[in-house]
């Protein structure tokens, strides 16, 4: 009897191991919602009709956004679906897209590095960063996304001088530490929903181990700057705004 129990346990463990070890690549499409942001900035702050209209247009445009995450065992690319028009105004399209994902995010988990390719007023920026450890709290709360059971994790992060709560729902069944924008390398599973103060990203379509190999070409021969240097450039734009533009 003991012998059979042992064989059974070994078989189960082997099976579980096989399931987890099998996922080597994937393609995820994320949808975006800015409704929480809209409610916070319009309903709670009693915005003027003009300001309310601006927030409404932004949130409506965001509904049409689709973002794609492709990954293999060590690298990923996260970016907007190419050629997707999200509103009737080109300027609004570009702005809302930047708000949701600043550009193309390349991640290499083995090297612990990320590069963001973005632009502002015609100038291109290649922003390099190290993937650092974030202080996520893993909770026991669970919910299901597209047949995957996800666990909830919470991170408190300082944004514009205030502590903000970031919520991620990650799937331990897909044991890769990738996710939207720069939320990579920290959680023990793929992030299928991410709630930031500005928007919520939710996986709509999950394709694991696609037939076509996923090859990621890391950007080469480019001038890069650090995250701090990029932030300083952004602070100059904010200072210009504070001085009346």
């Amino acid at each position, binding site marked *: 009897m003991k012998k059979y129990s042992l064989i059974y346990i070994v078989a189960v463990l082997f099976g579980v191991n096989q399931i987890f070890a099998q996922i080597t690549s994937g393609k995820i499409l994320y949808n975006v919602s800015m409704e929480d942001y809209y409610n916070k900035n319009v309903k709670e702050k009693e915005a003027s009709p*003009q300001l309310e209209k601006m927030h409404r247009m932004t949130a409506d445009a965001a509904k049409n956004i689709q973002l794609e995450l492709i990954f293999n065992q060590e690298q990923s690319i996260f970016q907007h679906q190419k050629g997707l028009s999200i509103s009737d105004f080109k300027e609004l399209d570009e702005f809302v897209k930047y708000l949701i994902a600043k550009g193309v995010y390349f991640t290499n988990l083995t090297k612990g590095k990320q590069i963001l390719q973005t632009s502002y007023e015609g100038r291109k920026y290649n922003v390099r960063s190290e993937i650092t450890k974030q202080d996520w709290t893993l909770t026991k709360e669970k919910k299901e996304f597209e047949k995957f059971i996800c666990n909830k994790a919470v991170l408190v992060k300082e944004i514009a001088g205030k502590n903000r709560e970031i919520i991620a729902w990650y799937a331990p069944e897909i044991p890769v530490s990738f996710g939207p924008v720069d939320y990579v390398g920290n959680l023990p599973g793929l992030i299928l929903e991410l709630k930031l103060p500005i928007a919520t990203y939710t996986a709509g379509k999950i394709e694991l181990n696609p037939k076509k190999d996923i090859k990621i070409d890391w950007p080469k021969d480019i001038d890069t700057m650090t995250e701090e240097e990029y932030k300083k450039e952004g602070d100059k734009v904010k200072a210009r705004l504070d001085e009346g533009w």
Partner: protein
Amino acid sequence: MKRVIFLMTIVFAIGLSSSSLNAATLKIPTDCEGMAFDYADHVYDQTGDGFAAGKAFTVALALCEMM
């Protein structure tokens, strides 16, 4: 007769002033710049990103002036 002309003048004057008041109300310029600054502030508050705030200001101003 003089009384009737006087009353008609008064009525005409009141009508004229109220119609110009309406026209003046309609012509008050919408404060696009103020709204654009408020919008940029909201965006910065949620993102902490100066570039996002700059883009927010530019697009809000352009859309407000267009509408």
